[in-house]
């Protein structure tokens, strides 16, 4: 598990910022996957973003991706235990492997009405 770089999408969904996160030793390019992460509801408040691109190493699971996201956005920890996690618009468990170009959605419940 490692992270190469991540770029963020602002409220308009456009790329507003590109960051290099050197949390772990740099892996060679061919072992990196690029996934798109979508934030909903409270996850948007906590990150200030609607989504980001995340580079992870081959063999990473949804769980690994979540850990990376929480390292990047520590406030996300608030909803760690209470969210629907969807990979490519389908329910996924944290142990699922992610593949290149996958889309991971983080969906905490809304309770207002």
């Amino acid at each position, binding site marked *: 598990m490692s992270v190469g770089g991540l770029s963020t999408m602002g409220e308009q969904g456009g790329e507003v910022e590109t960051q290099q996160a050197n949390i772990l030793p740099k892996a060679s390019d061919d072992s990196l996957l690029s996934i798109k992460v979508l934030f909903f*509801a409270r996850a948007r408040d906590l990150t200030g973003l609607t989504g980001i691109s995340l580079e992870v190493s081959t063999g990473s699971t949804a769980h690994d991706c979540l850990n990376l996201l929480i390292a990047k956005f520590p406030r996300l920890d*608030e909803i760690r235990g209470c969210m629907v996690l969807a990979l490519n*618009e389908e*329910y996924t468990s944290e142990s699922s492997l992610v593949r290149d170009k996958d889309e991971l*959605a983080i*969906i905490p*419940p*809304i309770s*207002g009405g």
Partner: protein
Amino acid sequence: MESNGGDAFRILEEIETLKAAKSDIEHRIANLQVQIGGVAVEEMTDSILCPPISTNDAGFGHGLSPEMVYRYSRQLLLPSFGVKGQSNLLKSSILVVGAGGLGSPALLYLAACGVGRLGIVDHDDVELNNMHRQIIHTEAYIGQSKVKSAAAACRAINSTIDIVEHREALRTSNALEIVRKYDIVIDATDNLPSRYMISDCCVVLGKPLVSGAALGLEGQLTVYNHIGSPCYRCLFPTPPPTSACQRCSDSGVLGVVPGVIGCLQALEAIKIASAIGEPLSGRMLLFDALSARIRIVKIRGRSLHCEVCGENAAFTEQMFQDFDYEKFTQSPLTPLPLKLKLLPENVRISAKEYKERVVKGEAHVLVDVRPEHHFKIVSLPKSLNIPLSSLEGKLPEISSALKEEEKCNGPTSSPGASLYVICRRGNDSQRAVQLLHKMGFTSAQDIIGGLESWARDVDPNFPIY
């Protein structure tokens, strides 16, 4: 206000007279309806046992009267809905919990389309700040029961269906009795404990639950406990922390957002009641108003390990009644604004005292710690806006404002300028004062009850929001 006392009294008297006349007319209408054996049931409370829903059979083999055929003709013309769908709908009963932003459009459409019996649960009264989204209510009903107002609106649209008024909060003590009388439940509430309670109640009684939620510019919708779909607890076995559950009264909501979700709730309920189409079971619809995107995500199926609907779950009616949902979610069923008490009395002053000090010309700085977009709605004169979230980094601004104030008032102001902190309701101001004390601003005091108490106790014309 006081100067209009005489007028107000006359108006109140007139209202009473009109109400008496109205009640007399309603009584006469009811008598006439009994005489012609009409089907319209104008008033029915939950204390009366709901009679079985019957439709007139006019001899066309489908139970729809000529008036019904005409009223519902545009639905009957739909091949996939037709007479069968309409008959099913007329025989069905739907309970809408909450007559607010979600419940308003849901109730209007359900009444209009001809659901046989429509129940409305709510304990609240209509307020002016509801009107932008709770479109079932009109200004004339401000201060009156939401259920009464919603029922009147539904009856005005369709006088031929049963509208049942439940003017009470749904609680573990009454939920089984109320929900049992209906085929389908719509969760249109605004708080977490109610969502868990309604879901559990629907599992215990085997009712499909059309659940909608909206906040800010986003909405969510799914059908729980229906043909293999999960219950609320399967998806969220552990309740989110209270900080993650924001309310419209704090975070705001664009009126049409719950409107869209409420309409979709009515649609899903109609599909289930009339047995047409493919319900949103096992899928969750996510509505993003700002980017005009709707996504539908497949969600998990029923969890075998779910404490309420799982294989080995033994969640009985008794357990439901004994369950403490407020404790489980750590939030109240009928949310009241939070009232923190973090500071000792001697570092707090009332809005009235603050006013007196301003009048006396006391040298001081007033820091308003609300977010900037709140500050733009309304603020006190000469207050300095430093949102709580950025307070720590902006202490030099406070120091220089204090120095400036001392300079303006000359060396005569002996102990230097005072520092006061205000917010909307008096919670964040206490947090801010705690922080300021820690950072060396030991004289900082907060204004108890914030701008709301200013509006209540000092300036009745000051806008509240």
